[in-house]
């Protein structure tokens, strides 16, 4: 078929182009611009080339934050994906229980992020917090996320799992509900065990939504800022300083716009690369060895 050139079409694309320019392209170009300059004072800057990139790439604090970030996102995926699927499998399939469980599960998703940090600060306090109080009472340990790195990590992880597993569960539930009844009937007739039904029917049929869940949870957890910032402020020490918290420290608290810009770009490239790798890997699992 021949394509019909119609230049009026460009006019229709224009609004989107303008919005994308203001929301993504111009900010990105600004960051690139910052990253190659040393800004001494407003209106006074020197071109420094790749200087900031070299400095940031060899910054041991950035390295530490990056490994911390990998550990965090890894744990998030390893815990939240199976847990979310498990919750989805356990949810009722019909009746009033469906609406009730959906609303209950979605509640954490409706709470503003900075409020979540505050909730968990109070929740883990050994004196008045439900969690901290009983940990103290039962084990004798005074739970303190402001003093002990392990406690801080436990709190951040618990908060993250509590906050975002519902998203995975909702996606998995949607995927499960979309499986036609005939598949379950065929599995029963074929004498498949519940485990075989899960592995050969439910899991493959959920592949699409689970891919989305993995990508969303990976990107979100890799960019996490508000909740740990409110909860621990990146401490104790630097033990919960994730990439974004460190970035904000450099760019906004120390106002080092050059190194901040370079850091941002490195951060951006890592997220993009890893998302691409995840996507490709999950798509390949789905297609398998095609004959």
């Amino acid at each position, binding site marked *: 078929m021949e394509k019909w050139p119609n230049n009026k079409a460009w006019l229709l694309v224009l609004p989107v182009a303008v919005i994308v320019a203001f929301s993504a392209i111009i900010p990105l170009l600004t960051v690139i611009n910052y990253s190659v300059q040393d800004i001494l004072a407003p209106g006074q800057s020197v071109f420094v080339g790749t200087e900031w990139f070299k400095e940031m790439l060899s910054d041991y604090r950035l390295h530490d934050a990056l490994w911390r970030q990998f550990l965090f996102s890894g744990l998030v995926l390893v815990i939240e994906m199976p847990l979310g699927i498990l919750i989805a499998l356990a949810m009722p399939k019909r009746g009033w229980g469906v609406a009730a469980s959906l609303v209950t599960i979605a509640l954490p998703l409706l709470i503003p992020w900075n409020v979540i940090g505050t909730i968990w600060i109070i929740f883990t306090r050994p004196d008045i917090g439900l969690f901290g109080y009983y940990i103290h009472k039962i084990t004798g340990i005074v739970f303190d996320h402001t003093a002990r790195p392990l406690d801080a990590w436990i709190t951040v992880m618990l908060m993250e799992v509590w906050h975002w597993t519902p998203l995975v569960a909702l996606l998995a539930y949607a995927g499960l509900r979309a499986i*036609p009844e*005939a*598949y379950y*009937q*065929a599995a*029963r*007739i*074929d*004498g*498949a*065990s519940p485990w*075989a039904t899960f592995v*050969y*029917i439910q899991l*493959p*049929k959920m592949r699409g939504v689970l891919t989305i869940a993995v990508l969303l949870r990976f990107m979100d957890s890799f960019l996490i800022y508000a909740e740990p910032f409110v909860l621990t402020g990146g401490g104790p020490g630097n033990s919960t300083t994730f990439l974004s918290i460190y970035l904000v420290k450099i760019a906004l608290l120390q106002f080092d716009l050059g190194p901040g810009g370079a850091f941002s770009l490195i951060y951006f490239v890592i997220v993009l690369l890893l998302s691409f790798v995840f996507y490709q890997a999950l798509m390949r699992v789905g297609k*398998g*060895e*095609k*004959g």
Partner: protein
Amino acid sequence: MARIELNEIAHSYLPKPKGESDYALKRIHNVWDDGDACALLGPSGCGKTTLLNIISGLITPTRGRVLYDGKDVTELPPEKRNIAQVFQFPVLYDTMSVFNNLAFPLRNRGIHETQIKKRVLEVAEILDLTPFLNQRAAGLAADAKQKISLGRGLVRSDVAAILFDEPLTVIDPQMKWELRRKIKEIHEKLTRTFIYVTHDQMEALTFADQVAVMFEGEIVQIGSPQDLFENPEHRFVGYFIGSPGMNFLDCTLEGNRAQIDGASIVLDEETAAKGRKAEGKLAIGIRPMYLEIHAESVDGMVGAKVKGIEDLGTHRIVTITLAGKTLKAVLPEDKPVPEDEAWLFFPPQWTRLFADGWLVK
């Protein structure tokens, strides 16, 4: 392999059915012999899939018993019944190869791997699936997928019956014919009990020796294709089977004449005698291919008007009005059709009488 007996089956999807109308299946009492090829034919919503699911054990009927070879299996789940079912759209294990799909029901039953291999290769050969064995099932065409579904039933040597739930719905028209022939061929080769549910009369009539026609939760007639065509026991069978369906005219009986708003049609003595004894609203029925159209009146003919002619290439369908009712007649290509005014003849041997929808007997 088994003889399947349905003993006074009734089913309602409501937990506490009250009236007759709450039942999806009203009363089914029927036996299919071992090795039969039977079809369940009926429109959507007549309860045929419900009946199939009762036979396979996916549904436990509200009332009645299901027996395989005289053994009561009503309470047994499908996996304990040795039944196989092919669904409306292909149900496959997408991530598995064709071989593993076919082997799946055997593996679940803990059969030895060497025996599994033997069985799968045999069945693949019968179904022409051998070239695809190592491919992933997900990438195949719809007809091959349906063959795999069928194959999962055939691999089990102990399978009592194979149930088909409108298996050709998603198949391309050309492949439909091919696959239907294949299913019939397999039935002849393996002589297992096949129960085939469909709303397509062509499929039912070409597949089965015995067709059960279902209507509103009941089997209204079981018979050979010829029986269903020539002697429909219920108006619904007459209307549903044949294209176009049977013509029906409400009538009253006077002697051996059926009176229809002034027009009078002669019935044969025997039919008329039975009709006089029958109760309920009477109607006569005639197949469009038996209805004769003439240009000149002879004794026993009734006047009518020709409204339209559809030429289908092999034959013509003529639309006629008689006493305000519309009738269809099928005529061969070479026979002339009178314009406007015409005379209809109802051959007594092909004119049936129905009372309250049922053939008078």
